[in-house]
């Protein structure tokens, strides 16, 4: 491997940084035409109801109302809002509008008016008669409940995913490796534990927005804050019943996604209005609507049974998961799969592994894709369990992990068996510095297995806890990305990609990769992304795919471009291509003779070379034959106030192996940002529903996300490896940062107070209750005994 890079592995500023910082109009709602109709949605006030009648007459009589559409006015085509490959692993269980509403906030009618006030007035005048139905709100009671969330007959899956809507099951799955029962009975120690993770809201700062218009050809043009323009185009065409060729989706800058914009939420509504009125139509959700009517993380109950020997050998784990997908099944199966497929391979020496369960419907708002995508839920359960076993066999939690964890050159049977929606792919891990991550992390935090908690003052206890994690790099043999390079007059390149920069800086790192491969400066690569009419295909930004999948596509394209350039020069000078050298500026012939330079070549091929004139371009695509996981070790130092139960995060150390960091600063921010979302989920972020299914946490004053005062020091380092299959050795880094905080903080709390918290978040009242109920007396089960005496 050649590590003398000139453009990659450097912390260049994002190419769009200064424009964004100065607030230049760049996001969807900034760009919407001023004369566009304003679209607002009438939403269901009931968790489950059948619409008996809708009277729009009074609303339509309001001056300035352009159109009102209800379920009878829109195509009745089952589809899924999940932005995923084709055929989608999510059930087609949704209509743009239906005569059933399945959660409070579900769409009932689309109103378009000249301005917002008029649209709102019209909404207030629509009279809907509902037949209120008993809602299903407890996901643990969903299976075979008398309430059936989806009684309609037209809905279906695209291939077998265990879809049984009559039983409220959106998807189910089961797999076994080895003889689980035998290994459990042969283990010295067997533990059974149940863990719960709460739903979490994405809270991307830019609320979902889109606008639509018909172009001069009558094609529908949608500008949308989406993570996946091509999936959006396909899903939208299907849901509207129009050919894909009649749609164009444009993505401007996006104000954060985190999976929350990996679905179509608002696009069908503006599309229908534009088609109905032949006018531009815009929509921007309010924060309340984003909370109440977009998606959350899947809440899960995870039961684990594990067997180990007293010498520290982990023999077996049997994992059962129940996941709540809410009213619709977007990402139901795949998130559920990732809870196992991107956690269990961490401990690849187990003799037997079981994984199975179901994803169920309830009358809550839908769950969907969210950074971590099941891995954070699974990691919380798995890494809490690892500490539980370590305590049970009196072994340092780090030592126990080190004895059982995956290492470079090894594989896991899970890779082959579990994919996302179908089988996985076999994969030998060619880059894994997990051992370095742990060693460096324990050094930075000051881990001392004899002193994992200590009292700093009466009633104030500090403690350490840790967890390790893995993620993936795209979905192997499913995700595909492409890039096109084209030489422009003046000697610079257009780089067109379908990859979708959500603010992560992916446009910048893709330009870095292209510049490195071409040997030119980054200023000579101008990135255009993403527009389905102008960008080559890419599945979009999700599943930690952009650096690895789109990055590899760009690398292939740039290497092909070099070849194209050299061949053009060879042709011009009647040389064999192998006799021409290119150093990024100049072209040399035999014996180093200077032939021409890139600038001259660019003018010559476009203007001067008469019969030889042509556009010099290259296009290449990449799909991963595997998805090399990034790895990390996370260490928390917390302080527990025993009087109030308040847990403060004093320090968090994260050491990450994501291969080569293409842009170390941007990689670091990815980890820091991911950590904070994981910390929020661990400490206080909580989606709360009322008795009748009403979302109580529907504003930022009721759903707090971490501020800059909520964490102490965050230390991020990279244990760099070189992934042979990645662009310049890179793996992904988008999601890995979010995974460890719930388990690492739970493990630290256990070390502080001697109680295992099986459910996130660890709010002060929860911790206080645990302290109160903790009885350190002789009857306490061994595995609940703290390593150090509970400070008083």
């Amino acid at each position, binding site marked *: 491997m050649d590590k003398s890079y000139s453009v990659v592995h450097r912390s260049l500023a994002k190419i769009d940084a200064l424009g964004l910082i100065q607030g230049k109009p760049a996001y969807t709602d900034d760009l919407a035409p001023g004369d566009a109709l304003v679209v607002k949605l009438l939403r269901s006030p009931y968790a489950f109801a059948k619409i008996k009648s809708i009277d729009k007459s009074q609303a339509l009589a309001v001056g300035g109302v352009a159109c009102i559409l209800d379920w009878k006015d829109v195509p009745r085509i089952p589809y899924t809002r999940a932005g995923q490959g084709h055929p989608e692993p999510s059930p087609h269980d949704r209509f743009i509008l239906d005569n059933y509403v399945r959660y409070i906030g579900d769409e009932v009618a689309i109103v378009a008016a000249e301005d917002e006030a008029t649209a709102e007035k019209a909404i207030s005048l629509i009279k809907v008669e509902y037949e209120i139905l008993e809602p299903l709100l407890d996901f643990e009671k969903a299976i075979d409940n008398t309430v059936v969330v989806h009684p309609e007959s037209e809905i279906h899956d695209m291939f077998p995913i265990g879809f049984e809507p009559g039983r409220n099951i959106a998807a189910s799955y089961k797999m076994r490796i080895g003889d689980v029962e035998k290994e459990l009975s042969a283990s010295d120690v067997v533990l059974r534990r149940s863990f719960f993770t709460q739903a979490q809201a994405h809270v991307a700062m830019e609320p979902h927005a889109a606008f639509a218009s018909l172009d001069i050809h009558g094609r529908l043009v949608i500008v949308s804050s989406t993570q996946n323009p091509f999936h959006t185009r396909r899903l939208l065409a299907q849901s509207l019943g129009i050919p894909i060729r009649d749609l164009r989706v444009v993505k401007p800058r996006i104000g954060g996604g985190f999976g929350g914009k990996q679905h179509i939420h608002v696009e069908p509504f503006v599309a229908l209005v534009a088609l109905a009125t032949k006018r531009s139509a815009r929509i921007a959700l309010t924060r309340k609507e984003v909370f109440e009517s977009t998606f959350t993380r899947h809440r899960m109950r995870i039961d684990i049974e594990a067997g180990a020997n007293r010498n520290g050998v982990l023999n077996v784990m049997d994992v059962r998961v129940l996941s709540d997908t809410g009213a619709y099944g977007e990402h139901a199966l795949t998130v559920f799969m990732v809870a196992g497929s991107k956690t269990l391979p961490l401990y690849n020496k187990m003799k037997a592994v079981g994984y199975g369960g179901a994803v169920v419907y309830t009358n809550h708002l839908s769950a969907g894709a969210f950074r971590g995508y099941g891995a954070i839920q699974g990691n919380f359960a798995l890494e809490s369990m690892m500490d539980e076993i370590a305590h049970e066999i009196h072994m340092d939690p780090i030592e126990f992990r080190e004895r059982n964890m995956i290492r470079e050159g090894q594989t896991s049977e899970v890779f082959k068996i579990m994919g996302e929606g179908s089988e996985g792919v076999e994969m030998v891990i060619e880059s894994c510095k997990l051992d370095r991550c742990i060693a460096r992390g324990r050094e930075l935090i000051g881990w001392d297995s004899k002193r994992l908690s200590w009292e700093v003052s009466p009633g104030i206890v500090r403690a350490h806890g840790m967890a390790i994690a893995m993620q993936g790099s795209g979905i192997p043999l499913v995700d595909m990305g492409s890039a096109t390079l084209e030489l422009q007059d003046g000697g610079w390149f257009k780089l067109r990609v379908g990859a979708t920069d959500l603010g992560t800086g992916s446009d910048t790192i893709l330009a870095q990769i292209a510049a490195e491969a071409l040997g030119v400066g980054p200023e000579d690569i101008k990135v255009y992304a993403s527009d389905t009419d102008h960008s080559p295909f890419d599945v979009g930004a999700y599943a930690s795919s952009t650096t690895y999948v789109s990055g590899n596509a760009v690398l292939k394209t740039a290497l092909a471009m070099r070849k194209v350039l050299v061949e053009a020069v060879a042709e011009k000078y009647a040389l064999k291509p192998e006799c021409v050298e290119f150093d990024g500026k100049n072209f040399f012939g035999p014996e180093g003779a200077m032939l021409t330079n890139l600038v001259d070549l660019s003018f010559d091929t476009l203007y001067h070379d008469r019969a030889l004139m042509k556009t010099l371009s290259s296009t290449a695509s990449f799909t991963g034959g595997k998805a090399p996981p990034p790895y990390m070790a996370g260490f928390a130092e917390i302080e527990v106030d025993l*009087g*109030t*139960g*308040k847990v403060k995060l004093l320090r968090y150390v994260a050491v990450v192996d994501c291969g080569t960091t293409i842009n170390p600063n941007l990689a670091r921010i990815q980890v820091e940002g991911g950590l904070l979302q994981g910390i*929020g989920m661990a*400490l*206080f972020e909580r989606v*709360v529903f009322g008795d009748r299914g009403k979302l*109580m*946490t529907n*504003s930022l*004053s*009721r759903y*707090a*996300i*971490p*501020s800059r*005062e*909520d964490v102490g020091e965050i230390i991020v380092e990279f244990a760099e490896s070189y992934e042979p299959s990645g662009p310049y050795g890179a793996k992904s880094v988008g999601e890995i940062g979010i995974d460890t905080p719930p388990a690492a903080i739970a493990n630290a709390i256990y070390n502080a107070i001697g109680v295992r918290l099986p459910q996130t978040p660890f*709010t*002060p*009242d929860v911790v*206080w*209750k645990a302290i*109160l109920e903790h009885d350190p007396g002789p009857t306490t089960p061994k595995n609940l005994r703290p390593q150090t005496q509970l400070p008083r």
Partner: protein
Amino acid sequence: MNIATYRRPSNLDEAYDLVVKQGAYPLGGGAWSMSVGRPIASAVDLCDLGLRYIRVEGKNIAVGAMATARDLERSSLLADVFGPLFPEALGGIAGVQVRNIVTAGGSVAGRYGFSELLVVLLALDASLVFYNDGTRPLSEYLGAPRGGAFLLEKILLPLDKKASYQGLRHAATDFPVLSVCACRARAGWRIAVGARPGVAAICPGAGASLGSTGSPGEQMALEAGRIAAGELSFGEDLRAGAEYRRSVCSVLVARAIRRISYDS
């Protein structure tokens, strides 16, 4: 927020006429009204009445009704008298950009359960000066049912007291789970607790248990905390349950008392 009629009087008499006689809705900072979004038929903006001040008036500090939370937080006059009390109590309210909007008068008139300011003012035994309608202790005002139009002009704080604030939040910029202020004066102690989640209330028993001692010891502080927790009612909301609030009340009351003892 939908305001049908908006008026901005330039003197107190005019404002009094609109608010008290005609029943118009007085706007303090307006931030809470904005976020609640209820329509207002007739609104009176109090921003041109010269009520944004913090100054010494005789034996009191007078806080104009339109002084912002940030004014209170940054006031050197308040800092000289009360030390870090106001920045500690008010510094957790959302961000500076909201503390620059919300007003002392708005917090009093709104009687918000989450209000840190009310806890502090109640502990300090502040009085409210109503334009044309006399002066009443804040405790009396909070004890009486809502109703009756009034024009709050200023809040009077005593100069001879020490107080300390203790609060607990899930996230730093979130509303408090519980707010406590302990105040020591020559006559004795006053302990106030807010975000129960109900509006701030005085704990008479806890205050009395400390007698007139200047620095109560650890045991007395803990006992006062226990009494406070026992004599108030607590409820449940999104952030915590009643049982937890009661428990934390005793801890925070003891800490607030201890803090004053140490500081003196």
